[in-house]
């Protein structure tokens, strides 16, 4: 039964992939090898599509794989499978957390966790943006870095930073404007 297999395979990914959407990748490659649902080349396409559409990357991948394998119902089975373990585990964690929230131990652990999360998110944001600001090819020399700087991108970054600080509009306003600017000024050129 294909739907059940889809649910089961993505359930496994949801249960064992620790650390966010891209952690599901090894499971997808494993599925590409073991099943005839998709090839490992298609996993690359899935990553590209996931990254150019809204929503969590893991969910996008499950939906795409489920749909190409078994249509609408397939994509629902794969996505529910992926999400199911998280929902159960997080509800359990929440209950435990509520019980020990006031304890000194939990407080001390979060004292260390909060700056770590700040660092993690900063690093993730940095690695996503860096390739758009500086494009490097071949050997890395100061001259190569200087000529690799994308001035259009730097300018957009600076202007956006100023606007976001000044006007606290909904993030989607800035995202839509940036998409339009990217198209208008051909940012990949």
């Amino acid at each position: 039964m294909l739907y059940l297999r889809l649910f089961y395979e993505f359930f496994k990914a949801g249960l064992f992939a620790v650390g966010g959407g891209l952690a599901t990748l090894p499971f997808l490659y494993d599925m590409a090898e073991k099943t005839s649902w998709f090839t490992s080349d298609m996993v690359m396409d899935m990553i590209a599509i996931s990254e150019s559409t809204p929503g969590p990357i893991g969910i996008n991948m499950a939906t795409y794989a489920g749909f190409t394998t078994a249509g609408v119902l397939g994509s629902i089975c794969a996505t529910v499978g992926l999400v199911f373990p998280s929902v159960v585990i997080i509800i359990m964690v929440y209950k435990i957390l509520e019980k020990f929230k006031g304890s000194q131990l939990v407080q001390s652990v979060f004292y260390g966790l909060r700056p770590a999360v700040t660092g993690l998110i900063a690093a993730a944001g940095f690695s996503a943006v860096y390739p758009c600001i500086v494009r490097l090819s071949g050997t890395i020399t100061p001259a190569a870095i200087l000529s690799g700087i994308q001035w259009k991108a730097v300018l957009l970054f600076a202007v956006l930073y100023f606007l976001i600080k000044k006007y606290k509009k909904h993030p989607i306003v800035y995202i839509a404007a940036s998409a339009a600017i990217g198209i208008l000024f051909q940012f990949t050129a």
Partner: protein
Amino acid sequence: MKELLDLFLTFARVGGLTFGGGYAMLPMLQKEVVEKRHWATEEEIMDYYAIGQCTPGIIAVNTATFIGYKTRGVLGAIAATAGMVFPSLVIIMVIAAFLRNFAELEIVKNAFAGIRICVGVLVLNAVQKLWKGGVVDRATLVICIVVFAGMLILDVSPVVFVIGAGLAGWLLKKAGGAR
């Protein structure tokens, strides 16, 4: 019922407007969940992120489940998660059915080159808010810098840093308390 629908719609908005994975979702969550709805505080979101990093599954879903459960119990958790997932399901199905070469289109590439920069600025702005809540003294400053540099230089899972930082927090407080 109304609150469940509210959870579904709010998280559908967060899921449908987030480009680029869990970390890019943070500015949306700060706006929709913290500022507009007051379902969680800035610090709680941070704690959920940390837990979401070291529990299995997708961080966006883990965070949605946390906030949904906190607001409205098991049904709330399901409503928030369903909302988070719904836009992806629809958008990806349309693309998989009609636009297999979506990511190759020139217009899409250009739009995303712009969006990626915007997400970077939004994340930078979100990080500044987190900084105020998380980096409170010299020890936490060191933790933040070590994790940032470690993530960029070393090829290890974020889980390692989360567990390490939790341990460090425990040891630091223990040493401080014994003084």
